[in-house]
């Protein structure tokens, strides 16, 4: 079996949030979505550490955004999931699904 990149649980959550937000994915919005949908209270530092790791793996791209008054005049940084990122996520989800087939959780899912 070739060497593959595997995603951690929090990396999956962040990638899912990026998919959901599409072109509007920046720090504050990502934290909001994770809090609302995944019910996880994430620190901004942990989020950026994960996004940096995903960027280094080539699963996420970054672009500079505009500054707004609500941010105290500071610029945003937008993140977008790459094609490779989506493939990785699909692969991880498939692995998880396969593992759960035949288990009580798999039956419910």
């Amino acid at each position, binding site marked *: 079996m070739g060497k593959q990149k595997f995603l951690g649980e929090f990396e999956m959550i962040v990638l899912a949030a990026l998919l959901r937000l599409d072109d509007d994915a920046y720090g*504050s919005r990502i934290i909001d979505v994770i809090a609302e949908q995944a019910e996880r209270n994430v*620190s901004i*530092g942990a989020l950026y550490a994960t996004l*940096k790791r995903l960027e280094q793996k080539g699963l996420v791209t970054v*672009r500079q955004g505009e500054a707004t008054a*609500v*941010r105290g005049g*500071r*610029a945003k940084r937008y993140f977008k999931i790459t094609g490779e990122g989506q493939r990785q996520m699909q692969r991880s989800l498939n692995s998880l699904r396969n593992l759960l087939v035949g288990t009580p959780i798999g039956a419910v899912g």
Partner: protein
Amino acid sequence: MSELDRQPPRLAMFLTALAAGPMLRDVVLGDLHEQFVAHQHSRGWFWWQALRSIGWLTWLQCCEAGRWRCAQIGLTASLSLALLWLWELRVAQTWSWPMAKTLLAWSPLSATATCQTCYAILYVMPLAFVAAMTALGGRLRSVRRLRLPLALLGMVALVPVVFYWFSPGTHDGNKLFRLWQAALVVMAVFSVVLMRSPSPRHRLVDA
């Protein structure tokens, strides 16, 4: 006063900016500011977020920086935490809540402090943090080269601790601690000045 005019605590912003470094400073502070205003969070919330993020942001900065910057960043972050603690203790002197007494009993600012171990924790922990950040910054070779300066720094830091350790019951050395705290502030400012230039390794894909 409108929501947009609300300002987060300045010291918390300063410490976050320090930990985030030039690469992430604006982005992180912008995100925190937006959350603070949009959700009408309290100043305590901002403090909590800042303290939760300092470790992560320092780590990120270390991953991007060169070996000497790595040591400077670790030093600055640890000094920030030490200064923050001292600041909180000073605030605690004016508070009447029950924990204030406990905090003061552990404080080098207190004339009645009796716990030498607390001094050891206060001054040795930051140095341990510097060593850990240097070692974990992804540049293990640098540890060998930093061994001597770190050892020297450690010895200097241990002087007041040893002084107190071997003179139980006397607290005439409080002046020494004040001097030591002043030295910490000078070192912190020096580190901040050194950290101001952006890392050349920073890459950003513009749209």
